[in-house]
């Protein structure tokens, strides 16, 4: 690539990065402003920062409890989802049937159904099983919701693995579980990792089911944010502070694991 197009490409990449970063930076700034400063026109870039919003939040809500629920839901969902998705994707990738492709498409099509369309049946099921306001209900619903994406991702990764290796392991006497755990999974570890990371991020950001199926005991950080939006009065600064607290853990997590995530998402892309 000659220098001019490269410079343009770099400039576009920077512009895109800044556009993505700006709302987050603005939210961070707003979280240290007073309510009047947060709505000032023209907007304030230089001001005396205050920690009042953070103090108010910790006085008003039990942040740790919401954060712990988010962590438990994200990890438990990811674990349960992998337990179901790995065997499903394995069977579809290495032992496809006549309808495997249709099945995959059908699974993906369930993602096109708006969640609110199944709110009442899911709510009634949760009520009858005494699972309202429990982490169990949110883990199950999130697992169901993310399963199609996980199966698709894992199916794609598994398909990139030479079938001969699987057959060779079976000839050498490995059973199905040994083939999956000792042969296949080490080969597709970046794929498993990126699927898991994506699942954790999706669960962390999930709001619809969290707001509808939880009340107090199982409420995660998305419900925490919702509690700071007010029908009357000024609330942008405090809401910004709540949002910073809600996304901080997943941002740090994403930052640490970004290399693994990118590696997994580009796995097999340059074959």
């Amino acid at each position, binding site marked *: 690539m000659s220098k001019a197009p490269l410079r343009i490409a770099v400039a576009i990449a920077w512009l895109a990065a800044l556009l993505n970063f700006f709302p987050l930076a603005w939210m961070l700034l707003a979280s240290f402003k007073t309510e009047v400063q947060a709505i000032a*026109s023209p907007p304030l870039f230089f001001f005396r920062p205050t920690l009042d919003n953070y103090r108010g939040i910790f006085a008003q809500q039990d942040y740790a409890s919401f954060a712990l629920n988010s962590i438990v839901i994200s990890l438990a969902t990811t674990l349960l989802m992998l337990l179901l998705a790995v065997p499903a994707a394995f069977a579809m990738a290495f032992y496809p049937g006549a309808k495997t492709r249709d099945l995959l498409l059908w699974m993906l099509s369930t993602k096109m159904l708006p969640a609110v369309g199944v709110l009442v049946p899911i709510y009634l099921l949760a009520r009858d099983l005494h699972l309202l306001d429990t982490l169990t209900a949110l883990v199950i619903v999130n697992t169901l919701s993310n399963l199609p994406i996980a199966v698709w991702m894992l199916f794609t990764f598994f398909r990139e693995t030479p079938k001969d290796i699987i057959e060779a392991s079976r000839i050498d006497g490995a059973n199905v579980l040994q083939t999956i755990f000792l042969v296949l999974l080490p080969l597709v570890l970046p794929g498993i990792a990126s699927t898991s990371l994506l699942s954790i991020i999706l669960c962390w950001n999930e709001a619809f089911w969290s707001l509808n199926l939880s009340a107090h*005991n199982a409420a995660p950080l998305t419900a925490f944010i919702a509690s700071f939006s007010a029908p009357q009065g000024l609330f942008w600064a405090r809401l910004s502070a709540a949002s910073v607290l809600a996304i901080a853990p997943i941002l740090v997590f994403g930052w640490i694991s970004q290399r693994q995530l990118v590696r997994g998402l580009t796995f097999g892309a340059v074959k």
Partner: protein
Amino acid sequence: MRHHAQGMKHAAAGLMLAGGLLLGSSAATTAATITIATVNNSQMVEMQKLSTQWEKETGNKINWVVLEENVLRQRVTTDIATHGGQFDILTIGSYETPIWGKQNWLVSLDGFPASYDMNDVFPSVREALSANGKLYAVPFYAESSFTYYRKDLFDKAGLTMPSQPKYDEVRTFAEKLTDRAHEQYGICLRGKPGWGENMAYLDTLVNTFGGRWFDENWKPQLNTPAWHQAVSFYIDMMHKYGPPGANSNGFNENQALFATGHCAMWIDATSGAGLLYDRKQSQVADKVAFTAAPIAKVPNGAHWFWSWALAIPESSKNVAVAKSFLQWSTSRAYIETVGKTDGWTVVPPGTRKSTYENPQYLKAAPFADFVKNAIMTADLNHPTAEKVPYTGIQYVAIPEFQAIGTTVGQMIAGALTGQMSVDDALKEAQASVAATMQQAGYTQ
């Protein structure tokens, strides 16, 4: 799609059962723990803070679920309609209370002890929270609507705001006080679509222009001259003298615009006064004044009535404890505690006569008497000049109104942004409301 939904239902059932066995339930409540669903406004936050006193006094415990208003409404409706039993106390409005009361979704609150002094609660507020003669919620605070204006700008321009302004006068004032070069707008009004947003204000405007939502046989009346005049007046005034992007401005946005000095006039909820008079939050605290909501042709329904109230759903398993909390949190003593603890401007307004007899409150809140009169004169049973089969000023107290109001609100917002004409917006609105009313069985 139906097969997919069915499939999901079956899968969900199986997995929920399996998951339930695997992970167990994390919800564990005792008999003396109640769950309260509420909104995040200053009065409710105050109640949350002070409720530790009630917990100490009674030994009971409260789990708070604080949600954004629309999320709360949807969340609570799902729970109450399915008898989910997630909440022991709900924060609901004067719109939902009679509807839910008639459907036996709420516990009747008649029979409170004499010490509660139910007669101290304004009769009009009690009536708004009753159905079939039974009280279904107790008011936490109540509000009406009036006109805020900047007395410094009026003085500078040599204008005088009357005690009962007419809409023609408001328009003239708005014209004279608009200075777009300095981001000063003559009038700020709600434009964000929604039954509780732009339609709350527009309903009062239509009422005072002599319009109504339905005739006595529930036939929609949106394509009438009164609606045309009211909506055309609103859009013309907003285009000429309103702030840019008004279609995204609701109560909060307009309050922020007024508090930062960008509005000469603002017609909205009386509950906005506390913040505008607060020097810590308002840049115009010493310049704000108020007067009655304007009138166009008739006085009926020119200012609204709203109350946030506390109710107990029928599905609650802790009715006695919940009632005890209701009596404490809406009592005369509670209001006095708030006044002494956090100042008299932040006490829940509009609910009790005794609040308006308290000299400390009257001294701290110059708007107090005006708010009381606005609430007392807001007539929910006669919101329009012509007869109507419904109650409610800025809403129609029927279950279908949330959907109807929001749809019509979106069409009027479309006319405000210039996507369609007023004629087209009202024609579409009329057809849409007529179809909904027919489907719901109100008309043939």
